């Protein structure tokens, strides 16, 4: 029996196990919305701007491990979605995005709301499709979900011309997906794994550097097993936070530009560095020739093109992090039987002592003030009040780095942040997606006043769908991270960072039907947060923080990770940083 292409799309989504789609209707996708009118089993959440649909799908995908789905119309809707697609591409988030397209006979005709959707999304998706025939819908949607969720996950875009949605056709549903040109490698090479095991046990100053791949492949348990066995300290990337519990004494917290002193020192002085599901991003490595200069590097990654891209790797292992770590644990056990590592273990004591010394010398910290709220304090309180168990989402900027530094993560898949692309405005819509997937969990969106205002319209979506996101704005009345850079690197020539009038966020929340709370003094922080977490429905807390508080440690871009600025620099240090960055 034939059915319309539109109905077929919904039927395929259901068969793929989709329960929620984030979307916004328009001319070219009206047939799908018409089919949705009486379609059972799919929840549609109407967003207020298309990028928000993409980010919500990202939040859903990142916290559930399932593919997130969004649906928008042609032309401007598709171009609005582009930011979310590139965001998902850079952070390896599995989403499938559907866009409408003008009827096939009008494609290329400069028709109303036409854009070359697949041409535009080609470089910002893992793969994309233009469906030209209703009979291809089933196989293409099947392939789209397969590509998005396997190998290195990523966004896949499917463009749907209106006539394909209207015409009836026979649903073709292949039971299995077979693509001769796409076969990711899952199992690591046994010889390489054995080499890695030997190297790790022989190491005197080993460090594990865990990234988002550990989260994406659900490898936290395997990582923990390896660490328990080998007692190697672990640092995590921004995307990897939650892969290893921060309360563990072997945790070195985050590394990189705003990483901890002890993580950067440990990586710099390591003799063996095991990178798992991480990609040696420039925010992690700093100056590449000064990154872990004496280390032999083992790199586990499912994407061969990540290996030896920025840093030459000594032992590459292509494969799924979870499977490779499992095999690595077995290989280490095998090696330990011969007890070849006893000598190294003795030396490791010195390494542990050295790391403890670094932790003592320079822990994460800030100066308390009785009058002005310190942003770090707010994050610490959120962390304490939620016992490190909340779903945490952030925007992009200083507040994001403080959240990464001061929230004590315990579990994987409870942290969403825009790492690779650094998309301001990511917080609220992504948190919305998380709240849709986890109605019974506390979802906290830690945002900045700049970042929040890029997608504040989504408060309406939260209210309408009772998505109980608790947004905490660290309000520093401007673009704080830019203020920090202009102060340290551009000689205090502040330009375009201070907001004159910002809206009254409490009234704004109220206008959207949400609850608004304000805190302006340190003593008000905990009561405000407690009230927010106890109030049902979406809540916004506007916390006025010290606008002169900066994120430290800080490695100026292009600097070596050992050249960290640890506290507000004096004039001489600023001049040095300015010269290195700007040349004057």
């Amino acid at each position: 029996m034939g059915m319309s292409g539109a109905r077929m799309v919904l039927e395929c989504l259901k068969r793929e196990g989709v329960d929620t789609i984030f979307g916004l209707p328009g001319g070219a996708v009206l047939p799908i919305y018409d089919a949705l009118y009486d379609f059972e089993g799919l929840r549609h959440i109407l967003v207020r701007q298309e990028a928000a649909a993409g980010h919500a799908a990202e939040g859903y995908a990142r916290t559930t491990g399932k593919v997130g789905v969004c649906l928008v119309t042609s032309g401007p809707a598709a171009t609005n979605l582009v930011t979310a697609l590139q965001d998902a591409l850079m952070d390896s988030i599995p989403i499938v995005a559907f866009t409408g397209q003008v009827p096939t006979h009008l494609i290329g005709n400069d028709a109303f709301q036409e854009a070359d959707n697949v041409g535009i999304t080609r470089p910002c998706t893992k793969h994309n499709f233009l469906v030209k025939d209703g009979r291809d819908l089933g196989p293409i949607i099947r392939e789209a979900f397969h590509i998005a969720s396997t190998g290195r996950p990523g966004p896949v875009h499917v463009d749907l011309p209106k006539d394909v949605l209207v015409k009836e056709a026979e649903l073709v549903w292949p039971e299995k997906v077979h693509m001769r040109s796409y076969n990711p490698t899952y199992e690591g090479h046994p010889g390489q794994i054995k080499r890695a095991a030997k190297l790790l046990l022989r190491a005197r100053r080993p460090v594990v550097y865990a990234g988002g791949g550990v989260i994406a492949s659900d490898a936290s348990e395997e990582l923990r097993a390896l660490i328990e066995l080998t007692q190697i300290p672990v640092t995590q990337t921004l995307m990897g936070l939650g892969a290893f519990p921060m309360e563990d004494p072997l945790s070195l917290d985050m590394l990189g530009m705003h990483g901890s002193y002890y993580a950067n020192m440990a990586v710099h002085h390591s003799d063996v560095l095991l990178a798992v599901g991480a990609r040696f991003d420039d925010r992690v490595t700093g100056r590449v020739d000064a990154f872990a200069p004496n280390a032999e590097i083992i790199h586990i990654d499912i994407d061969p093109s990540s290996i030896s891209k920025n840093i030459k790797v000594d032992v590459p292992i292509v494969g799924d992090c979870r499977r490779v770590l499992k095999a690595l644990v077995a290989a280490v056990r095998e090696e330990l039987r011969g007890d070849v590592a006893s000598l190294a273990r003795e030396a490791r004591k010195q390494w542990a002592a050295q790391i403890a010394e670094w932790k003592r010398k320079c822990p994460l910290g800030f100066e308390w003030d009785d009058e002005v709220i310190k942003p770090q304090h707010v994050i610490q309180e959120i962390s304490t009040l939620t016992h490190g168990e909340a779903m945490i989402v952030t925007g992009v900027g200083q507040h994001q780095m403080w959240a990464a530094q001061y929230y004590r993560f315990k579990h994987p898949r409870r942290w969403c942040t825009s790492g690779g692309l650094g998309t301001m405005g990511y917080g609220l819509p992504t948190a919305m997606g998380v709240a849709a997937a986890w109605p019974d969990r506390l979802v906290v969106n830690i945002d900045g006043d700049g970042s929040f205002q890029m997608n504040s319209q989504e408060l309406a979506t939260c209210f309408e769908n009772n998505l109980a996101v608790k947004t905490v704005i660290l309000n520093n009345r401007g673009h704080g991270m830019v203020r920090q850079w202009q102060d340290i690197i551009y000689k205090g020539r502040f330009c375009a960072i201070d907001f004159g009038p910002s809206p009254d966020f409490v009234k704004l929340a109220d206008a959207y039907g949400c609850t608004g709370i304000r805190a302006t003094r340190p003593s008000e922080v905990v009561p405000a947060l407690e009230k927010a977490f106890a109030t049902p429905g979406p809540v916004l807390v506007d916390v006025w923080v010290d606008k002169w508080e900066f994120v430290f440690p800080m490695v100026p871009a292009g600097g070596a990770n050992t050249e960290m600025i640890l506290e507000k620099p004096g004039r001489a240090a600023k001049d040095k940083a300015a010269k290195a960055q700007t040349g004057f």
Partner: protein
Amino acid sequence: MQNGGGPRKHTIGVHVENKFGVLSRVAGLFSARGYNIESLSVGETLDPTVSRMTLVVRGDEFVIEQVTKQLHKLVDVIKVTDLTDESHVERELVLIRVNAEPQNRAEVLRVADIFRAKVVDVTPVSYVLEATGDEGKLEALLELLRPLGVQELVRTGKVAIARGPKTRVKRAEVPRRARGPEDPTVVGFAD
């Protein structure tokens, strides 16, 4: 990335799905990552669902390693083979319209003859020559024709094929050079 070995020309064979948009994916990869394509040619293979591209790219070994890996990462790419250090044959076809005034008509023909180029169009003032060969031969031919007056030149770009028994279907499926120290899967060939 540290430089290892100076930049040189690589000839890379790429089997791709014969689908719309594939050429744009490959070309887009090069422009997005700032690599230069010196030449690119595409055509159908014996299997009409598969196209074969021949790419000529200049780069040091790290650039070429990334190019190969990134090409392979494209979902529609079936196989990537760097032919440069393999025994292979490469050819290019050129069409050259060259001045043929009375005083040099004979000379043009002599040169064409030496290089086994064919005359495919004649007018009182010009010839169009068709020549095939590897890069060295064609450069040499052009060198000799240039002083006689080349009006226009069109090149197909290089095509290349591995020599000998390796072209048998079964063998050609296997990537011939392991890239990692021990790990043949490092490049991540799909097969």
